[in-house]
């Protein structure tokens, strides 16, 4: 199989026109550090919020640290601080390598980096001081929104330039996902933050707000996540993706069906029923598409499964994929009007959200940072064992939290339906909320271990490649053609 089209492989790290490296490692590293810092903040906010449910909140009666405000810090920073920052880091690494072209301009990258961190800090401070916006997942204060839009626009241009300039045509799968994700993100953000705020009251606002919540997962996080998987998995496995046809089905299926689902966040509401039926139908339809993507990746892994024992990034990726399939399968059932009667408004949904945002996309990004950290710091891992601890503590913590809150959700839903007095549902949830806090502590502990390891690695006197290389570096410059199945060309 001719995997590599030699003529298009960039010859060196730098191209001939300039001294700038193809990949700006400083920017990658900066986004990783920022992303992990905000991940920590989001986790601590979540853990702190969870103690309110045990009636032992650590800072009762303090306005700025009120649990309601801290919850918004948790969800917003998880999306825009943790996931977005780490995606930025991954994109600054992957896009130049996939295209053989640098991003548009280095000053733009730097400006975008600092602007984005300022946006996040303004979000945290704004929410703590009571300037939150009343739209789910768009609680970012109104005065911050224009800067987010400018940031997304700059990101789009910065990454579109190499994608348009590349001589690698047709585009590789990852770049389809990235191309679509950038245009979607800007449109979704403008739609979700402004229309329900100023123009569409009540039911119409709910329909658009539902679109926003779901599009943020489906059109921002999901395509970037899958784009990353289509890049890193074949690279680490050193073999092409199993089927190009399945890649096409997966991408176009997602692009068509995913945006149509938003209203399923408001089932049994006064939104016209035909719109609700449409959302339910397209949600179930997308699960069929998801299955094709999962098949594609597991068939790619076939024959190389033992790599999951030795290669931690790959273990993160495939754990995330298993959880992705779990989420999506769960979604196809929970979206039905039947199950919605019980589970809507309960902790079931909270469990689902954590499974998606941390268990799938969070895991993929943790895997990507684990894969790239030695490359961007140029140092050997301080300890591979600590990384394994990180994996297991996070995974077990998340699975406990998911199972725990799912059961709690069912108990709450049935308690409400049986017309028990309201407080009974709170009392019955208490043991589950304790387990939730415990599971959250496990996840936080895992990240503490990891951050210590990342720090010690950055300070490690042993440079990458001094000892036996643990990760193969020779494919790092491989362009898209390497990962394209031979049958497609």
């Amino acid at each position, binding site marked *: 199989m001719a995997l590599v089209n030699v003529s298009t492989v960039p010859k060196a790290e730098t191209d001939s026109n300039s001294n700038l490296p193809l990949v700006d490692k400083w920017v990658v590293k900066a986004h990783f550090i920022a992303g992990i810092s905000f991940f920590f903040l989001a986790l601590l906010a979540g853990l702190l919020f969870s103690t*309110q*449910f045990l*009636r032992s*909140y650590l800072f*009762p*009666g303090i306005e700025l640290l*009120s*649990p*309601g*405000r801290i*919850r*918004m810090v948790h969800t917003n920073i998880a999306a825009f601080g943790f996931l977005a920052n780490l995606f930025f880091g991954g994109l600054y690494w992957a896009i130049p390598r996939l295209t053989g072209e640098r991003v548009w301009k280095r000053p733009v990258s730097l400006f975008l980096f600092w602007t984005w961190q300022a946006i996040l800090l303004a979000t945290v401070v704004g929410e703590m001081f009571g*300037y939150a*916006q*009343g739209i789910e997942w768009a609680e970012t204060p109104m005065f911050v929104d224009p800067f987010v839009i400018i940031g997304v626009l700059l990101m789009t241009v910065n990454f579109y330039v190499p994608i348009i300039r590349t001589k690698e*045509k*047709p*585009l590789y799968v990852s*770049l*389809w996902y990235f*191309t*679509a994700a*950038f*245009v*979607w993100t800007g*449109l*979704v953000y403008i*739609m979700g933050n402004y229309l329900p705020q*100023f123009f569409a*009251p*009540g*039911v119409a*606002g709910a329909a658009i707000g*539902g*679109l926003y919540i779901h599009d943020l997962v489906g059109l921002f996080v999901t395509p970037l996540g899958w784009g990353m998987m289509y890049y890193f998995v074949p690279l680490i496995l050193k073999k092409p993706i199993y089927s190009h046809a399945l890649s096409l089905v997966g*991408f176009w299926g997602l*692009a*068509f069906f995913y945006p*149509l689902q*938003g*209203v399923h*966040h408001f089932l*049994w*509401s*006064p*939104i*016209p029923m035909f719109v609700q039926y*449409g*959302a339910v139908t397209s949600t179930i339809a997308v699960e069929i598409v998801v299955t094709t993507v999962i098949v594609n990746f597991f068939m790619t892994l076939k024959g190389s499964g033992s790599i999951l024992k030795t290669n931690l990034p790959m273990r993160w990726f495939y754990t995330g994929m298993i959880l992705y399939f779990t989420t999506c399968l769960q979604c196809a059932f929970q979206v039905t009007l039947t199950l919605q*009667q019980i589970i809507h*408004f*309960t902790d079931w*949904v*909270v469990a689902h959200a954590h499974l998606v945002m941390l268990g799938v996309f969070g895991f993929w990004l943790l895997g990507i940072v684990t894969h790239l950290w030695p490359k961007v710091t140029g140092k050997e891992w301080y300890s591979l064992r600590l990384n394994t601890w990180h994996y297991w503590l996070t995974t077990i913590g998340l699975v406990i939290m998911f199972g725990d809150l799912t059961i709690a959700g069912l108990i709450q*839903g049935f308690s*409400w339906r049986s017309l028990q007095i309201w*407080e009974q549902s*709170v*009392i019955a949830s208490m043991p589950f909320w304790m387990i939730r806090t415990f599971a959250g502590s496990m996840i936080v502990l895992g990240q503490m271990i990891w951050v210590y390891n990342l720090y010690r690695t950055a300070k490690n006197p042993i440079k990458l490649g001094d000892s036996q290389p643990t990760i193969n570096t020779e494919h790092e410059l491989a362009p898209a053609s390497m990962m394209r199945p031979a049958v497609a*060309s």
Partner: protein
Amino acid sequence: MAKSPIERFSTIFLIAGVSFFAFSFIASGLVPWLMMNKLHTKTMDELAKDMPASFTKLSQDYPTEFKKHFGAANSASYKEALILGKEIYIAEACWHCHSQQVRPISNEPARWGKVSTADEYQNELQLPQMMGTRRVGPDLFREAGRRPNDWHMAHFFKPTNVVPSSVMPEFTWFFDNNKRPNKKGLAIVTYVNWLGSWNKDSTDEMLQSIPKENRAGFVK
């Protein structure tokens, strides 16, 4: 390499990126929006005209504080209190733990009353809408008239004093140093008592269902 138009930047940008998104927005955002436009959208002034008795009662329950912050109980001060109350409801993220939506299922009408309808949300106080996302505490869309003002005040100050099993945070900054409600306290109680107050029949019906001896303090 074979020419493959669907793997080109321009195709993906225009069809997947722009067109599919636009289609989804039209189908599930714009269509319900245009349908709702047939309903009259109540402005703040229209809402404020319909002042419930609970607001007058608030001015009697906390006369000094009410006079200081809102003056007299009239449409103008009611409007001001409602707007501030909604702002607080958002700033404190009340809507993350309380829904404003009675669904026609799961015995919700038996617990809360009339199923919520589209017209009830067609007003400026539902901009942005507050249907909610999670119910740690109960739904609030039929809250008006259920509980007296001083119940709400005591509850906001320290919820477990009123409902021992509650996990609601305490909002001590709704009160001054003498533990009397400040402007925020008055406004949030006004807002909470607005929820469902447009629904006169259901409030009366609800009140009738409460034994006479337990009606003390209920607005009527």
